[in-house]
């Protein structure tokens, strides 16, 4: 056997590289906050907020909260809203955060039934219309924003086709609009579920299935998630060839704001206002929070005009506080939904799984 050289620099080199990585990673440990509130020496603690992927707030607005209350904010994200709520339910009593933001009416019952929230009557709640206060007796959750799930249409496509865009659920089942609509899987997508709930609210327990049979006969296409539907199938956003898609009432202004520097007279996409299902988003103080005082301050902050007026162009949702001003771009390109469909959280919880299963067997398989 020949002697094998053992002086290769490879392993020490690799170890060095990886070790350095480990060290930098350790040194850069900015976010270990588990709500235990590391005192920053500024008199306040850290407020930890667990939220979904779409949460967004301007840096300066958040900085003002810290200035005024002394609490710094740490944001934890846990996937989409459903995943986030389930995580909170599983960590009941020993939460990762102080505040949970982003419970919507499709998920509200689950959070309330699991008893993971501590009541707090937020300052400024009296400026929030009663229709949004879905836990008005106990105030375990605070309504923060609303949004509508509606069919969006591609204006240019309908102008070229010489066809008026649809406005109502009935229109969508009209043969004039055959093979034009793309929707999301109600089983896996939150706008998909919202649209299904809208049809249940509109046609009732006895009528919604018939309606979906008509939609299926009229060539509705089902894809898995909003990303595929809007980015890949919808003609109004670039890549697709279907001019009707289930999205949000605020998608047209979002498309303009994130569409480049131009500001057209009207958004290239419009909203079928007769197809809208209203979502209300809530926040709440988690039971067992490490910094309950900071959590309460944060809930109050969510209803301040600062935050409420920042939301529209950040998360593309409507403020719930009356009198909060909405930026001109948001109203100019967006649609005002006068009479959206709604459903009580308890009814959603009771019917949801059954509707999804029936819908799946009707439309998908």
């Amino acid at each position, binding site marked *: *056997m020949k002697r*094998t*050289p*053992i002086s*290769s*620099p*490879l*392993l020490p080199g*690799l170890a060095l590289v*990886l070790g*350095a*990585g*480990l060290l*930098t*990673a350790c040194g850069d440990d*900015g*976010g*270990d906050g*588990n*709500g235990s509130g590391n005192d920053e020496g500024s008199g306040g603690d850290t407020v930890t907020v667990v939220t979904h*992927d779409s*949460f*967004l*707030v301007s*840096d300066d607005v*958040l900085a003002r909260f810290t200035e005024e209350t002394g609490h710094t904010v740490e*944001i*934890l994200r*846990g996937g989409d809203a*459903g*995943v986030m*709520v*389930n*995580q909170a339910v*599983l*960590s009941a009593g*020993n939460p*990762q955060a102080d505040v949970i933001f982003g419970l919507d009416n499709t998920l509200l019952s689950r959070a309330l039934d699991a008893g993971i929230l501590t009541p707090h009557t937020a300052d400024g709640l009296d400026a929030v219309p009663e229709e949004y206060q879905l836990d008005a007796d106990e105030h375990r959750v605070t309504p923060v924003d609303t949004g509508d799930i509606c069919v969006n249409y591609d204006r240019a496509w309908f102008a070229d086709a010489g066809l008026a865009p649809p406005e109502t659920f009935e229109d969508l089942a009209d043969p004039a609009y055959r093979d034009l609509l793309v929707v999301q*899987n109600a089983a*896996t997508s939150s706008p998909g579920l919202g649209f299904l709930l809208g049809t249940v609210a509109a046609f009732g327990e006895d009528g919604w299935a018939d309606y979906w049979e008509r939609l299926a006969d009229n060539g509705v296409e*089902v*894809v*898995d*998630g909003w*990303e*595929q539907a809007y*980015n*890949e199938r919808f003609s109004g956003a670039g*890549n697709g*060839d279907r001019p009707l898609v289930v*999205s*949000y009432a605020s998608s047209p202004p*979002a*498309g*303009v704001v*994130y*569409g*480049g520097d131009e500001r057209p007279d009207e958004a290239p996409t419009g909203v079928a206002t007769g197809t809208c299902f209203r979502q209300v988003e809530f926040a709440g103080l988690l039971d067992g929070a490490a910094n309950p005082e900071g959590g309460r301050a944060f809930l109050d902050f969510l209803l301040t005009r600062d935050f409420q007026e920042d939301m529209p162009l950040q998360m593309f949702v409507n403020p719930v506080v009356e009198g909060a001003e909405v930026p001109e771009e948001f109203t100019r390109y967006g649609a005002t939904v006068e009479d959206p469909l709604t459903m009580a959280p308890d009814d959603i919880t009771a019917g949801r799984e059954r509707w999804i299963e029936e819908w799946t067997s009707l439309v*998908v*398989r």
Partner: protein
Amino acid sequence: MRRGGRRGVAVRLALLAVPLAFFALFFAYPVAAITGRGLRADGAWQLSRALDVLTAPGIGDVLWFTLWQAAASTALTLALGLPGAYVFARLDFPGKRLLHAVVTVPFVLPTVVTGAAFLALLGRGGLLDERWGIRLDDGVWAILLAHAFFNYAVVVRTVGGLWAQLDPRQEEAARVLGAGRFAAWRRVTLPALAPSVAAAGLLVFLFTFTSFGVIQILGGPRYATLEVEIYRRTAQLLDLPTAAVLTLLQLALVAALLGAHALITRRAESALALTDPAGNAARPRGGAQWALLGGTLAVIALLLLLPLAVLVERSLSVDGGYGLAHYRALAGTESGTFVVAPWEAIGTSLRYAAVATAIALAVGGLAAAALTRRAARFTRGFDALLMLPLGTSAVTVGFGFLIALDEPPLDLRSSWILVPLAQALVGVPFVVRVLLPVLRAVDERLREAAAVLGASPLRAWREVDLPLVRRALLVAAGFAFAVSLGEFGATVFIARADAPTLPVAVARLLGRAGELNYGQAMALSTVLMLVCALTLLALESLRPAAWRGGRGGRGEWVV
């Protein structure tokens, strides 16, 4: 068996301690916690519930589809990848090293991004549709092709790595003795490769068995796998009892598969003459080799490069023309709460990947070293155990972390280390699978000779095994790194402080309306591709010094 005797056993047990602890703490415990929570309600085991789930209508279809699509995807990937493994192992051609790194790029791309690329090629109004009216987005073909796209590198790297080290003179000797070219390959090379082919097949099968994004995006809502069902039950409905039963079913199937794999490979592994790979590749000669090279390059161009090119094209497409606006928008991004500046995401990705690679190499390397000798039965069982994370649903592991690692001193829920830990869990099986065939191919007599000459087990390992497995170690590191760079599974299901990795940042951009967001997502995906390719190139340029000397060194490692 006297080699090493009791001391050898003790050494092996000691080596196993770290991987065992890692596996128990970060896999077995969390998964047991979440399934236990599901199966025990009101203080009693809900076994009748399990029966209900298993006998529910539709579950048979889900199971059948899960299994056959994984088997078909594995077969397709092997069929496309094995010629590729040969070409990269045995043939020299310009741009080979670059291409070797590029074929791994698909492995790190988020499925939502590649889904978009595949739809652009295969879907309605896609390239095939416009040219020939062919649409594949409705059938299962898009799923199979996408799986081949993702896993091509697994075959090329796992099999090609060993193939490159096989001494071609053995096959040449068989031919001199009168065997035909194919007979020589079948009798000499194929048996030597069998363990690594089985390893690659196993990895691809497990990956596609738990496939999630590809099935959802390309298969649409009509196709459901076990993984999709488990995700729906856990993440959306919080129906933990059903999810727990399905998780156990998934584990049982994976365990059966691992058992079968162990049975097959136990016979197949044997000592091989391993050589310096650089000496084993030559410029193609003869029609067959040119055809293989041409075919492989065509497969790579159509299956791998074309979808990647679509993404690059979209990242450059601005207002009907082309430009760098989306990249400029990325560069101009302030570090806010939502979108991070791209260099921050790159930094985070690289840091996490480096830590995950270090963990995976340490844990997997120790496990492989301990498992090298196939003596004891328990080591075989442990080998299979280490593979389980690959066949387990990411949402199960993620939610398991959440409820298991929630008490001091192990309240890791919000800690950054959870991310590389979860990634390493997926990386370890790759490290073990890549290292083991090579380690087991090392001639036992070499180690015995070292022992006779008075070397301690450690020294024998360092001087005998290590030089031979350096290449495999690099391959393993590359895999662990790529797995980590692209990982989007378990870590998505853990709420963490905001340090998004590249795939997470891409997903966030895609989740918002607006051409600019879409363009930036594509631009950031292109950045992710570049980061992956460049890192792998750098990693592979760390070639062992002894081999760098050139082709003359071939005989050096052979007794």
